[in-house]
């Protein structure tokens, strides 16, 4: 199979939200001894970018967005380990989750998928995530960015906890902490000393990209 055809398969798998097809296409990349980085950047990334744009226009909905993200992840799981160390694959790794005591997940899922579409490696910790888990996972996965979503006035306090926890252990400057979710505001973000407040998913991607450039 030609390299172009394999790239086409990678793109198609993401655009059709098909994890199995993504895995076969990734295997074809390996079999044909193609450059894995090229496969990611020319195959997967443009496709997920398209998906993100369609979601923004509400041409597709949350399940498609998340399934496309899943398809991309399945291909990345095979390709990423083959990228030589030192070569840049993603802009940065982001650890994201909804804070402790809070089970609202839709906004967080959108942000997480759109970050992936924006070229970030995203580790989604799910909902009801303990403060220490955000920090431990960020350290363990070599993440530069921590994203914390909170939808209730009773749970936004946990966003402050994450920042206090990092400060107390002297790790505050190692991470960019972004916060968001319905009741949060720029003022709240400033008050707790977060590095950025994301009004929506597009804004979240901008903030994360800015954070990477700033470093």
């Amino acid at each position, binding site marked *: 199979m030609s390299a172009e055809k394999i790239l086409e398969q990678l793109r198609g798998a993401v655009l059709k939200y098909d994890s199995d097809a993504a895995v076969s296409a990734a295997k074809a990349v390996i079999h044909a001894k193609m450059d894995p980085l090229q496969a990611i950047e020319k195959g997967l990334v443009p496709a997920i970018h398209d998906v993100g744009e369609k979601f923004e226009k509400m041409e597709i909905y949350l399940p498609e967005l998340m399934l496309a993200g*899943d398809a991309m992840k399945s291909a990345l799981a095979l390709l990423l380990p083959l990228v030589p160390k030192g070569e840049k694959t993603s802009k940065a790794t982001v650890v994201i989750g909804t804070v402790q005591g809070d089970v609202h997940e839709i906004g967080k899922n959108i942000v997480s998928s759109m970050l992936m579409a924006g070229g970030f490696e995203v580790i989604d910790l799910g909902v009801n995530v303990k403060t220490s888990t955000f920090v431990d996972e960020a350290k363990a996965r070599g993440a530069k960015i921590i994203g914390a979503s909170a939808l209730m006035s009773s749970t936004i306090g946990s966003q402050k906890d994450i920042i206090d926890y990092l400060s107390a252990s002297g790790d505050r400057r190692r991470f960019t902490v972004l916060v968001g979710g*319905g009741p949060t505001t720029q003022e709240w973000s400033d008050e707790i000393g977060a590095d950025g407040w994301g009004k929506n998913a597009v804004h979240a991607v901008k903030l994360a990209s800015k954070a990477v450039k700033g470093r």
Partner: protein
Amino acid sequence: MVQILDVMQKALEGKPMSETDYQLRSFAAKVNEKVKEYDIHFDRNTPIPDDPTLADDAFQAAFDLVVEVGAYCTNTNRVISYTESEVKEALRFAPSEIEFGEGKDRRKLRPRSVGDKNPPWCLLGAGGGACSSEQSFLALVEGYAEIPEANAITTPALTRVGGMRIRPASPLEVLGAQRNAVLFREACNRVGRQGMPVMNALSTAESDIALAGAMHPKYGLRQSDGYMICCMDPMKVDFARLNKATVALGLGGPIGMCFGPMMGGYAGGPEGTAISNIAHHMMGILTYQASWFLPFPLHLRYVSSSCRELLWLISLSGQAISRNTHLLSVNLNYTSAGPSTLMCLLETSASVTAAVTSGLHIESLGVASNKEEDRTTPVEPRISAEVGHAVAGMSLADANELVTRLVKGYEDKLQAPPLGKMLFEAWDADRRRPSKDYIAVLKEYRKKMKSLGIGVRGGPWA
């Protein structure tokens, strides 16, 4: 009849599945399939559809969905499945009337039909919106309890106790929930409506322990209040929520399941979200032993229920439920715009009309997406109730015309709505009346409604 022990057994022994597989590969895929199978189509030009076959098809699609997909328990990662005969039996045995309240404020909630002349049950208030202080809590609830149409109240949620921000499942939340109960009764007593029921017991109790902690009669909750427990979209439950249901059943308090399927979310577009919305009713009787229902479908972007898609899906759901069941369904609406704006009043008028003419009762309302503390006043629910009474008996065709004209007045502003004023800017609690500016808006609103053929008072102040 499926009971709570059966639900637990199913949750412990059901088919194991990851949450992602359940919601994306099982639920979302099946909804899509049903939309196609039953050929359900949204039409922008008919926000209030008048097609009984469409409503019955949507109901059947929802029934299939419950049977084919089931609910999901996030603690055990298992599917809670129900057979066709279990769903049918649940629909048959679900209560067709419940009494709420005490003394002269005791009333019966009964099912309505499409075009029903009987006014809707008016569950009025903040829809659980957050308030910043006990002072704002009392100002709001006193204002709600004074609304003549009010059958029951939906209180705001307290966010602070003793100067500290409440944390979930902490002693602060237990104390907050107890205070929520006490202050509710205090506010009703102050305006002479001692028997008024609260039907979102208890909004401050997000966790199971906080609800249980506020159940002692000395805090004032009664068996004749309504116990509202949310289900996690789509059709997901966990032990904490099942605990709440078990506690409420123990007290004998009627459980209302609330569910907020987002259009654009797991169920896709307006068609799929309507099916999901209807399906949640059936899932709620079975899983939570719910005897009344509180759908609050919302648009994912606008986080409100006043755009054409949402009006259509509220109406279709209402018609499907009222034509095919005797379930007691109370639709909660959200506006995008805030207090003291004409847009907010027009939005709630449209959503209430869609619900009431399609056979639903109303809970009104979440103002300005219901996400900011204190961005709500007693005026908006009062207007919603007036509209609810005014449009009862209206035909679907007339409702379609009215709603189309209303929606044209604000739909281009949904992207960036005016957020209006805060509680104490727009409402004078001591004088129990809105601000001068707001009264001017009410006058304008009354004129606008009159030009559309609807006589509403706009409160006693306009």
